[in-house]
């Protein structure tokens, strides 16, 4: 049985990675699981300089999901490269850095640094709904995505570039094409859906930020649909995510057109969700007599 896939030039022992913002920089999870088993680790969204993030409450639970408005709190790229990266490199897995910024200049500066690091790919976050400037502002249109990606591509010459897309758009294929036309090696989708929860006793939103991003099993059907649509629209490979918990979920995304996947909120259900998902995929392959997992990518047959 062969679970290997190749995502945007990155060889992976299996298609299962953990999603940005749900796994920190790996240290906490290493107390519970063997990081060597993962196809890859996508780091917490990392910016040029340290970011404080939003006021609490920053998270709340919803039906089969949760909202977050973390505000991209992170220690900055310098801290990451000095403290986390050397530690992460001890593991036999791909390290993908989720990069975010508030302006094109910031994205470019950050990309220049990332270009020199011992990392396997960059996931460009153009899709965070929780910070005022930047991120999603660029991510919602063909032109916006193309513009940032073009500039970043010039700075990031030696690493695969994966552009992460927001689902908060009318037509997801537009930003996807923007990324492809600007020379991205892949796209990842979806980020969280802009949402809100109201505390009916206080008659105000639960999150201090008022709105936040919805993630978890609740968004999976939306994500599967979007992965399918993007797979029809672009040729570059897709890193699919949104609500994945089990091996069956992974297979569903791959059939829809994802080459690899990320597990995000699922990691909060249990620290070994990602490991169980790999086992689930193996079980499916056995049951359906699949020798090479990559054979099923995009193989859904529409009615």
């Amino acid at each position, binding site marked *: 049985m062969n679970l290997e896939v190749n995502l945007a030039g990155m060889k992976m022992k299996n298609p299962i990675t953990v999603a940005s*913002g*749900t*796994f*920190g920089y790996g240290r*906490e*999870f290493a*107390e*519970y699981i063997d990081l060597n088993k993962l196809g890859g680790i996508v780091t*917490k969204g990392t910016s040029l300089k*340290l970011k*404080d*993030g*939003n*006021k*609490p*409450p*920053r*998270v*709340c*639970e919803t*039906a*089969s*999901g*949760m909202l*977050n408005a*973390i505000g991209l*709190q992170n220690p900055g790229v310098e801290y990451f490269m000095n403290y986390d990266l050397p530690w992460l490199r001890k593991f036999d897995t791909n390290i993908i850095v989720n990069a975010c910024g508030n302006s094109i200049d910031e994205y470019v500066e950050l990309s220049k640094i990332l270009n020199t690091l011992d990392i396997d790919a960059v996931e460009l976050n153009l899709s965070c709904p929780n910070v005022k400037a930047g991120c999603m502002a660029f991510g919602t249109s063909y032109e916006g995505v193309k513009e940032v990606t073009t500039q970043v591509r010039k700075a990031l010459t030696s690493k695969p570039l994966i552009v992460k897309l927001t689902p908060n758009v009318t037509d997801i294929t537009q930003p996807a094409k923007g990324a492809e036309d600007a020379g991205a090696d892949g796209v990842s989708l979806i980020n969280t859906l802009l949402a809100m929860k109201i505390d009916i006793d206080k008659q105000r939103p639960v999150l201090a930020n008022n709105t936040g991003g919805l993630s*978890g*099993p609740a968004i999976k059907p939306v994500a599967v649909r979007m992965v399918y649509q993007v797979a029809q629209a672009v040729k570059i490979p897709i890193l699919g995510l949104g609500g994945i*918990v089990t091996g069956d979920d992974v297979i569903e995304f791959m059939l829809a057109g994802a080459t690899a996947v990320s597990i995000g*909120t699922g*990691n*909060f*259900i*249990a*620290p*070994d969700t990602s490991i169980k998902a790999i086992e689930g995929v193996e079980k499916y392959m056995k049951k359906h007599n699949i020798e090479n997992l990559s054979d099923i990518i995009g193989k859904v047959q529409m009615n």
Partner: protein
Amino acid sequence: MPFNVKCKLVKKEFLKDDICKMTILAPEIAKSAKPGQFLEIRVVDNIEPLLRRPISIYNVDKDKDEVEFIFQIKGNGTELLSKRREGELLDIMGPLGYGTFKFDGYKNIAIIGGGIGIFPLYELSKRAKNAGVNSSIYIGFRNKDLVMLEDEFKKVCDELILTTDDGSYAKKGFAINFLKEDAKQNKPDCIYACGPLPMLKAVQAFAKEENIPCQISLEERMACGIGVCLGCAVKYVGNDNVNYKHVCKNGPVFNATEVEI
């Protein structure tokens, strides 16, 4: 070192209609748990409700490998948890939190708790007592009907001061006022607090005024419980170069001077 383990529910009892006490068999957790730490409990083995529920460790019995926790039935999650049966296996992560209650070097301490905030104070009180530390415990409830664990706390301190806001049982008034009064005569080396926010704020202010070291246990909404989602932020005003710390990892116990609540 935290673990994710399936723990047998050996005993369940209700202290009140809505207050449930559970005893679990958890050798790994019992061996390493420190006072103030908490558990992340999956209330049912399902994806709904999605998130685990944070519940403090109430008591640890190292000889029996048992851990006890007590919770109030608040919403759907704690309701489902209260319906679990003895003999079932609970999926639990713990012991969690690197910020714990510490009493090394203190000879004379004051412990104050309000309502359901008293639960994490028991293991602290017990260990302090065993270590020969002199302690006064102040616990406050709104009224007589809500009073619980009086005998248990009595056994683990030198003096228990129990109050009700309306005077329907024991001393009338807020526990903090009795603590303030006593501290005038006999200044404690440290104050430990857990309870509703107004109480914590009052304790924090008093400790600052009197320049008494103070450790407070905080709550915040959590997703991961282990420091990766950065959800459970608390405003930090101490010497480290950050503006937020996280209740699940850096806490739940903080030095009162280092956090803004």
